[in-house]
């Protein structure tokens, strides 16, 4: 990675003068909006940007944010986390997963608690580290609890390809990869969330291409602007949406054009298609079953499929969240974190009742962490 200048990742996208100028343009143009703008940022990364950089404070009240279902940790139902725990508790097993998933409560426990209980549970920085761990532990079953939207799915597919090529026989996959378009469709079809525009996910679109959002403007009369994660990206996207509204346009546009194309990364898409296919049912935490909203390994890769190989021990009953937790309502765009009566009291990042408080991409976590200073 010596060619990569880390500074390039953020430099130029946080210039205070540009941020101020963009905010002013939005304020000026928002005066002409016929109705208040309720923007859904589908992706938790955008929620994080909005809260971390205090962008809402720069914008008029007529522009409000509704947080969407685009956090892969937040949407994981308890029964899937129970799967991970059950697999981790098998003898001679190493369970691998990514990021905050380790802290999300299942029905009775979490992976972090089970790790403290002595089970070998590790959070990876890259899925490809699983290869090394499997090779170094030939006498153990290594289970990769794979999570994430379209963004991380190619890494799982690439890992599978290497496992196959290298003839590794002790690495199993528990696939929990989910898809953005069916989730957005489910929320819009429900009709309760009053959303009149979308900020489209950034990294998801790099892989899938912006084409996956093309049906939305026509289907729901909602503009979509695919946006990068920097504060300037988000503000520019909001300005583009305000302009569409004022010009009575309703289109899919790409703000994040430095990384996103209409077609996306076709090589990554092919690799995913080689190994995975949509699964008929997948239950989203708090939202319920959204058909064809997640992926599973194809039948010919059953030898790697932890859900099939260890099916006998995996629980199958759906498990609902705590009655007081409104994560589901938040993920459906019907409530904000501080509408929840346990927000910041019984539910905090140290004692999370719901997944939205656990994940650094969760709306509750962002609200709790960065607060709203009046």
């Amino acid at each position, binding site marked *: *990675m*010596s060619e*990569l*200048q*880390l*500074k390039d*990742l*953020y430099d130029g996208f946080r210039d*205070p*003068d540009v*941020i*101020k100028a963009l*905010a002013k343009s939005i304020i000026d143009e928002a005066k002409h909006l016929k109705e208040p703008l309720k923007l859904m940022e589908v*992706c938790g*990364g955008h929620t*994080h940007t909005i*809260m*971390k*950089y*205090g*962008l809402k*404070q*720069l914008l008029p009240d007529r522009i409000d944010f509704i947080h969407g279902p685009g956090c*892969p*940790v937040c949407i994981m139902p308890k029964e899937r986390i129970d799967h991970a725990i059950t697999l981790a508790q098998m003898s001679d097993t190493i369970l691998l997963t*990514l*990021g*905050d*998933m*380790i*802290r999300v409560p299942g029905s009775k426990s979490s992976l972090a608690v089970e790790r403290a209980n002595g089970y070998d549970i590790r*959070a990876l*920085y890259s899925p490809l580290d699983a290869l090394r761990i499997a090779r170094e532990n030939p006498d153990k079953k290594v289970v990769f609890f794979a*999570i*994430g*939207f379209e*963004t*991380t799915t190619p890494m799982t597919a690439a890992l599978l390809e290497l496992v196959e090529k290298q003839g590794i026989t002790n690495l199993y996959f528990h696939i929990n990869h989910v898809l953005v378009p069916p989730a957005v469709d489910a929320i819009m079809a429900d009709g309760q969330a009053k959303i009149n525009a979308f900020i489209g996910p950034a*990294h*998801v679109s790099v892989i899938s291409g912006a084409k996956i959002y093309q049906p939305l403007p026509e289907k729901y009369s909602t503009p979509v602007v695919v946006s990068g994660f920097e504060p300037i990206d988000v503000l520019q996207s909001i300005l583009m949406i305000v302009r569409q509204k004022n010009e009575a346009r309703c289109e899919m546009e790409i703000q994040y054009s430095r990384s996103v194309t209409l077609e996306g990364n076709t090589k990554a898409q092919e690799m995913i298609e080689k190994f995975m296919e949509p699964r008929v049912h997948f239950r989203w935490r708090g939202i319920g079953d959204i058909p064809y909203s997640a992926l599973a390994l194809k039948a010919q890769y059953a030898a790697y499929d932890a859900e099939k190989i260890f099916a006998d021990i995996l629980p199958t009953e759906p498990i609902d969240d705590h009655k007081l937790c409104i994560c589901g309502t938040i993920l459906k765009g019907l409530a904000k974190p501080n509408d929840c009566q346990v927000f910041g009291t019984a539910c905090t*990042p*140290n004692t999370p009742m719901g997944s939205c408080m656990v994940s*650094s*991409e969760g709306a509750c976590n962002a609200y*709790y*962490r*960065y*607060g709203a*200073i009046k």
Partner: protein
Amino acid sequence: MTRPKQIQLSHGGGGEETNSLIHDLFYHHFSNDTLLAAEDAAVLDVKNKIAFTTDSFTVSPIFFNGGNIGKLAIAGTVNDLAMMGAKPLYLSASFIIEEGFTFADLESIVKAMAEELKHSGAKIVCGDTKVVPKGAVDKLFINTSGIGEIEKEGISANHLQEGDVIIVSGDVGRHGAAILMEREGLGISGDLQSDCATLWPAVQALIDANISISAMRDATRGGLSAVLNEWAEQSAVCLEIEESSIPVDEAVQGICELFGFEAFDFANEGTCILAVPQKDVQSALDALHEVEVTKKATIIGQVSRKKEGRVILHSAYGSSRYLDLPKGELLPRIC
């Protein structure tokens, strides 16, 4: 007897091998009259009020860019004393070593400790060695305790006053970022080094310049965020910080962007935060700028009463947010 290449259980057994390890390695590098007296306890000559501290060091990897566990064990304990306005005088050093640890690595760690002691003039006057079976510890744990003579009283996390100015002695987050890069084998090139260093010379410069110091703390685990939040809570004040004034190394910022971390949450091992009254700000900066490890000291904010117990971060473009205490283990974001 030829020296073995690895530490064996017998080196902790109390017999000839232990004796040889203590004399040939520890006494050799930490040599001073009190230690060489080899009594059951060190007899110390202290005239004034003393500060006393202890810390255990379990870093992984034990060798990292900018230091090793030994340098860290000395700098960490010496800095804890210095932050209380105490001149570090006497340290203990206790080693818990995993069977099989290489003698060469142990020696280079001990040498680094001896080298780091020179920056404060403190001495190791007592110690202990245990060797435990393979797997009982992760390579090597070191505990250091320290005693320092108070040269400036009244420095306390409870003493921040409205109007005090907050200074940071250097850029933040380098130790945490350097350790993360090495631990996870992230493969990011560059010369990112831990800030691991002894801060006593800087504190001495402040004392010599007769600066009033309301509070001073090295921003170790939990980083800048933890220190500022602890101060806001303990002194029941609001700390208002200008985000753009906080120095962060480009490589550290890059790692944070890549993995979704906050540089303010990363540990430092040679960077401290000070709260000083407005009247002393310039003299404090002048004193700090004279010392190598604090030559980039800069003002980052001030104490107010706006929101007691909270830290507010102001952006350069007019918004603000809370800077909260880091929570849980540092885990990278997923997408």
